């Protein structure tokens, strides 16, 4: 009997449940898709280190899954509490007919089980479908071979999804029973006689609070952007808290002010259905200040995470092309001593020749002059700069390279060579931060003393360039000097060996060279050395890019779903409550077109309010992110923002459209 009743209840309130069910379903499928990634990847032909990265990725994703489960759990509890509220009259009817609270609890339990099983089944089906698409993305990120790909279902991920969502539904059931036992019949019966108290907030208080919050928010924005240099961890956390609290108070005060402002614009307020529209919006926003705040912050985090993730991925790929123009790079730290071992010499002594594996290579040294420090290079401005940038090592000596060596390397790299004039020097640099400082202080004709010679700066600014293979623009500055400055006795800093493999099979060539360098390392007198290979850089950056992309997508999607669902539930229930109002407007002759326009505006503004503030937050948040991600290079920010906006528009906009069209059908004239 209870079962039949549950079924008919669900069928009857299908409209209320549709968005709930839909959200659960997406939640389940997203959860499955991200947990199935490692299983999907196992089906692909990948190399060893890619598997390691995928292992790391799946560890990261399962950690995030716990957080995601928390967010989805809260969303489900919120939604079910919301749906319960809407059914008070129905419960009152059951109770007046003599149904016990135990039976009502059981009724709800059956409903939750049905909805839960249904959404799990549907969500898993959708998830399994989507995860095949995800495999394509994984393959693309790891440049894997997809030809051997088969349709895969991850049993592990299915079990995990069922387990997590089972726990969530169980919590909902407990929660529902608590609510049921607390219900009082008299409250239930009077619940629809809502004598809605419309309290306009004191406008002066609103304006004052708004100004205070706006100032606080402005200060937080300033701290994370313009005040970036002095940003400490505690300041950053302080700014985030300030931002969140001000967001709340801005919504609180704006909800009070919107109506006042519009009401004072009489020409606009009393045009068509505007008075009705704005009253509706105002009452919705008034009761949703807390939810709006949460939604706004979630959208903000989503935008920043997605944009940053795509930015890291895109920049890495692009960087590799530009910043790794050779196959292999071997570096020995000589620390100002004369070379006791040189790659060439060891080659002779040990009988290991790595040069034979390279079709072309550059072999050179860099030098240091202890007296020529970064501080010296900055010249007169050094004191002032030192004050504001305390974390820079100003007394570290500058890296110096001969122009002929540098140009030989540039030929290998296929980059522009330098034309250095007599008694001059050029600084090459590509790390944005030090580049700015150097450009600011470097003037044509500036003189430096190096190895007893006086050289003058050939250019006003630094020249874009680097000598070692890297994933990021991290050359803080190298001084290129004429060959005649360097003598036999000049102290050496490092020895470099950079080249391209002979073999076309780069992986094989890498292996051979590795074996040889391992052999070289066995010589303990050899001192510290470091190598970078393009193959490895490729793999690592694919890994970093993949992890960033997946984490960003995962959290972003879940946050967007949660935001959309909360707004949609609220808006739909408001529409259901307002059916009578629309009916009345129709009776006094309002056009259907005007009613729909009013509904569109209500839904639109309701969805826009948290979005606008979130976008504003993001502008500053991204600014901060750009600075933090500086080393990765952020030229591709535009593309990242475009992709992020598309995802946002798709999900958030999707929820908006579903909400609008469902609301429209709710308020539609019944004949």
């Amino acid at each position: 009997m209870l079962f039949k009743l549950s079924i008919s209840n669900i069928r009857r309130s299908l409209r209320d449940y549709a968005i709930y069910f839909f959200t659960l379903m997406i939640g389940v499928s997203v959860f499955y898709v991200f947990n199935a990634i490692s299983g999907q990847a196992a089906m692909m032909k990948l190399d060893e280190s890619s598997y390691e990265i995928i292992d790391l990725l799946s560890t990261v994703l399962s950690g995030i899954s716990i957080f995601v489960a928390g967010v989805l759990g809260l969303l489900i509890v919120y939604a079910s509490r919301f749906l319960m509220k809407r059914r008070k009259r129905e419960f009152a009817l059951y109770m007046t007919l003599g149904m016990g609270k135990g039976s009502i609890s059981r009724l709800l339990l059956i409903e939750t089980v049905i909805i839960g099983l249904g959404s799990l089944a549907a969500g898993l089906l959708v998830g399994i479908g989507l995860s095949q698409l995800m495999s394509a993305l994984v393959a693309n990120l790891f440049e894997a071979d997809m030809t051997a790909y088969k349709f895969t279902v991850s049993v592990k991920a299915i079990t995990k999804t069922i387990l997590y969502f089972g726990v969530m539904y169980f919590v909902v059931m407990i929660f529902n029973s608590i609510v049921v036992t607390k219900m009082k019949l008299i409250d239930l019966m009077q619940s629809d006689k809502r004598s809605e108290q419309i309290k306009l907030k004191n406008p002066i208080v609103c304006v004052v609070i708004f100004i205070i919050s706006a100032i606080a928010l402005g200060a937080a924005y300033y701290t994370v952007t313009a005040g970036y240099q002095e940003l400490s961890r505690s300041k950053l956390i302080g700014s985030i808290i300030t931002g969140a609290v001000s967001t709340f108070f801005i919504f609180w005060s704006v909800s009070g002010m919107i109506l006042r402002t519009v009401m004072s614009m009489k020409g606009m307020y009393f045009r068509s259905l505007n008075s009705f529209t704005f009253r509706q919006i105002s009452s919705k926003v008034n009761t949703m200040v807390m939810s709006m705040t949460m939604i706004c912050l979630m959208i903000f985090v989503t935008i920043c995470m997605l944009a940053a993730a795509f930015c890291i991925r895109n920049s890495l790929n692009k960087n590799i092309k530009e910043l790794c123009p050779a196959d292999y790079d071997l570096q020995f730290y000589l620390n100002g001593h004369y070379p006791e071992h040189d790659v060439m010499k060891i080659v002779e002594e040990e009988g290991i020749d790595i040069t034979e594996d390279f079709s072309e290579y550059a072999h050179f040294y860099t030098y240091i002059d202890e007296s020529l420090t970064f501080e010296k290079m900055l010249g007169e401005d050094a004191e002032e700069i030192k004050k504001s940038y305390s974390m820079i090592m100003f007394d570290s000596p500058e890296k110096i390279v001969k122009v002929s060596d540098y140009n030989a390397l540039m030929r290998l790299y296929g980059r522009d060579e330098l034309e250095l004039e007599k008694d001059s020097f050029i600084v090459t640099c590509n790390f944005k931060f030090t580049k700015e400082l150097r450009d600011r202080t470097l003037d044509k004709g500036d003189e430096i003393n190096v190895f007893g010679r006086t050289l003058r700066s050939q250019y006003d600014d630094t020249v874009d360039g680097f000598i070692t293979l890297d994933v990021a623009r991290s050359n803080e500055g190298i001084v290129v000097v004429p060959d005649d400055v360097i003598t036999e006795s000049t102290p050496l800093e490092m020895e470099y060996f950079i080249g391209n493999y002979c073999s076309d099979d780069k992986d094989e060539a890498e292996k051979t060279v590795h074996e040889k360098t391992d052999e070289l390392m066995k010589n303990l007198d050899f001192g510290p050395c470091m190598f970078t290979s393009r193959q490895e850089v490729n793999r690592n950056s694919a890994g970093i890019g993949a992890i960033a992309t997946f984490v960003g997508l995962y959290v972003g999607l879940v946050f967007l779903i949660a935001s959309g669902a909360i707004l949609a539930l609220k808006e739909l229930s408001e529409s259901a409550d307002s059916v009578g109002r629309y009916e009345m407007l129709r009776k006094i002759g309002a056009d259907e077109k005007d009613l729909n326009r009013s509904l569109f505006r209500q839904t639109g503004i309701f969805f826009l309010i948290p979005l606008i503030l979130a976008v504003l937050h993001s502008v500053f948040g991204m600014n901060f992110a750009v600075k933090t991600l500086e080393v990765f290079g952020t030229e591709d920010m535009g593309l990242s923002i475009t992709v992020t906006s598309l995802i946002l528009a798709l999900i958030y906009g999707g929820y908006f459209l579903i909400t609008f069209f469902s609301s429209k059908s709710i308020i539609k004239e019944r004949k």
Partner: protein
Amino acid sequence: MEQILKIENIEKYYGSKSSLTKAIDDISLGVSKGEFVAIMGASGSGKTTLLNCISTIDRVTAGHIYLEDSDITEIKGKALNKFRREKLGFIFQDFNLLDTLTAYENIALALSIQKKPVKEIDTAVKTVAEQLGITEVLSKYPYQMSGGQKQRVASARAIVTSPKLVLADEPTGALDSKSAKMLLERFRYLNTECGTTIMMVTHDSFTASYASRVIFIKDGKIFNEINRGSDTRKQFFDKIIDVVTLLGGDMSDAL
């Protein structure tokens, strides 16, 4: 007197062929400009259906309804809404005010739907509020008002657009007797002083006695019709009671 409303042989059927209900069975009547007509009948007699057909909320199965020469049974869609908001005023039993708007805004809404300029709206609302004695409650919300005040606000909304015809469906149905009396006094004032044409549906003899003409409906047909003429309200009330008695048990709830 110029006829403002002319109803010709209208019929309204509900249900399917197997179980047909004739809510209105061939009714014809006319209302002149400046008249205050009451339609009486028991529950299920078809009086509300009649009102719904006149107000274009419902459609007739057969027959024609003319309001100022235009046949409203022929109007459709957008034109229907335009007609409704420009020519008709509605007063409902349960007030039908928007609970989120103040009294002023509720009244103004009827005009702003017609896209009237703000200045015009303001004067019109204030004038009509004065006529109905609700100037003090203009800034209040429906939940802050008494039933009588709400109904007068609803009435103000109905007449603020200067409609050709005001249709009232059981306007006193949800009011206590004192508020009902006050409202009806206002109706009579609007009718005699402002020349508003009112058509009111009721099953209450006291309410009907404020009208200048009462039409009785039984089983979808016109049963009787009495004019007030020069009678006092009390005399007219007695006459109505007589007809109601004649109608018998069916209308006993009308007493």
